[in-house]
């Protein structure tokens, strides 16, 4: 790394749910950091140097060391700043938390992309898949306050940024998240009462506007 600067820098993109995970984690820990907005269509030399393998945001640069991949970053933040732990201390609970955060990673973004990008039968399949994914997550949440139980935790951090995309999923897929998964909607509202979340997420209508831009770019509709 060119600079041996101390401190924390986050290379990010405003609407990215992956970047938002990192913002939420840093806020939960009360860590001050420098936020650097990247233009994904004109990536900075710093980003390309910090993440040469994937050339993607988010990247956390801490004391000159770059850390990539949002869930790797969140675990790093949790380990370096041990206040307000995001992962539980019990090994089995930790494994469950990692499993469900990984499930969100594997399923939501890919399915969400199919929802806005595709039409006809393929979109209908994406709609069915998304409802199934959300129902599985709602099943895991159950009647708990958060996925982490009484305390806001790792799975909450991993999943809550996608709640700002619920409106887009509903509109593209023609279904209602509230109707299919009312507990998830209630959970998302509870999370938004936390400053770390409300300050990191954007208004769902703004997100949907962004999806509109993406659709134009990809010639959808």
């Amino acid at each position, binding site marked *: 790394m060119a600079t041996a600067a101390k401190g924390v820098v986050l290379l990010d993109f405003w609407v990215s749910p992956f970047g938002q995970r990192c913002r939420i984690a840093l806020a939960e820990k009360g860590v001050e950091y420098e936020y650097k907005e990247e233009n994904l269509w004109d990536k900075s030399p710093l980003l390309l140097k910090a993440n040469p393998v994937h050339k993607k945001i988010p990247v956390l640069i*801490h004391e000159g060391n770059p850390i990539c991949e949002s869930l790797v970053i969140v675990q*790093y933040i949790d380990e370096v700043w041990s206040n307000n732990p995001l992962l539980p201390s019990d090994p*089995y609970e*930790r*494994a469950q938390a990692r499993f469900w955060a990984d*499930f969100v990673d594997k399923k939501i973004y890919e399915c969400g992309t199919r929802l806005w990008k595709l039409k006809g039968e393929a979109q209908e399949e994406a709609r069915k898949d998304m409802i199934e994914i959300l129902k599985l997550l709602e099943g895991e949440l159950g009647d708990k306050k958060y996925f982490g139980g009484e305390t806001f935790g790792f799975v909450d951090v991993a999943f809550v940024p996608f709640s700002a995309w619920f409106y887009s999923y509903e509109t593209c897929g023609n279904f209602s998240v509230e109707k299919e998964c009312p507990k998830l909607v209630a959970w998302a509202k509870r999370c938004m009462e936390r400053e770390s979340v409300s300050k990191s997420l954007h208004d769902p209508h703004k997100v949907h506007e962004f999806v509109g831009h993406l659709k134009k770019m990809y010639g959808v509709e």
Partner: protein
Amino acid sequence: MMLSLAPPSNPSRSLATNPRTKAPFQIAKTHPISGLLLPIRSMHRELKLSSSITSEKRLPTAQAVSERVEGGTRMTRGGEDVKLLGRWASPLVMRTRTALNLKGVDYEFLEEVFGVKSELLLESNPVYKKIPVLIHEGKPVCESMIIVQYIDDVWAATPPAILPADPYDRALHRFWAHYVDDKWFPSVFASSRAQTEEARAEAVEQVFAGLKLLEEAFQKCSKGKGFFGGDTIGYLDIALGCSLGWLKATEKMTGIKFLDEAKTPLLAQWAERFCANDAVRGLMPETDKLVEFAKMLQAKFKTAAPAK
């Protein structure tokens, strides 16, 4: 998602029973190869029958279907019930077995019959229905690297530590393990299974490019020692090392020497060291058996219904 298995009435048999019906778990009613309708008495008996009937699905001699795997002299927490659902050919299963071996943990290996998912598997991994699944004191843990971290957490008092102590080193191990799973290993498979010459060439290039990156990662992580984890096998060693069997099989099938001492000397030497390690020896599937297995898989997919 908790699966609570009734404790075995006869501990030496270690039979898993359905907590609802109290009946032993069934694996399959109709044998997938012979087509015989097998009288199901117990999971263990079913697996024994299938291995004796099907010579082409011969299980490696080391694993007689359901075996008690001794963890060695280092018993860390006495009398614990540890079961692992898996299959001999799976590199993901091998990861979890390597981790258990490293920690000297005694466990029971339950071999799943290929092509048939047991009730135990379906109940303990309802989300993905895939192996490996670790069942520890009746509670299932899924996803190979999550299982490896779980093993590291539970048996934290027993050296060696699988994840390094420093948060940045841990982040590096996690990042590269994710890269192996997300990008590199899929390209290894694609290089022998690609349908077009173009796709194959792209996959081959990706494998080589990945090895080059991993060579640099080795230099950074090992800090001059023998493994990504330093003196002992660590998280990234397990993630990458357990795919060496399939890498060798792919080299044989494609005629391409991927792991080349001339191109990636550190990795080539590391690979030999990894395969010779006590925790790994006996787990790595034989190259010829994997090639045979791969050919069987490819034939199976070719005769399946054409894609939409």
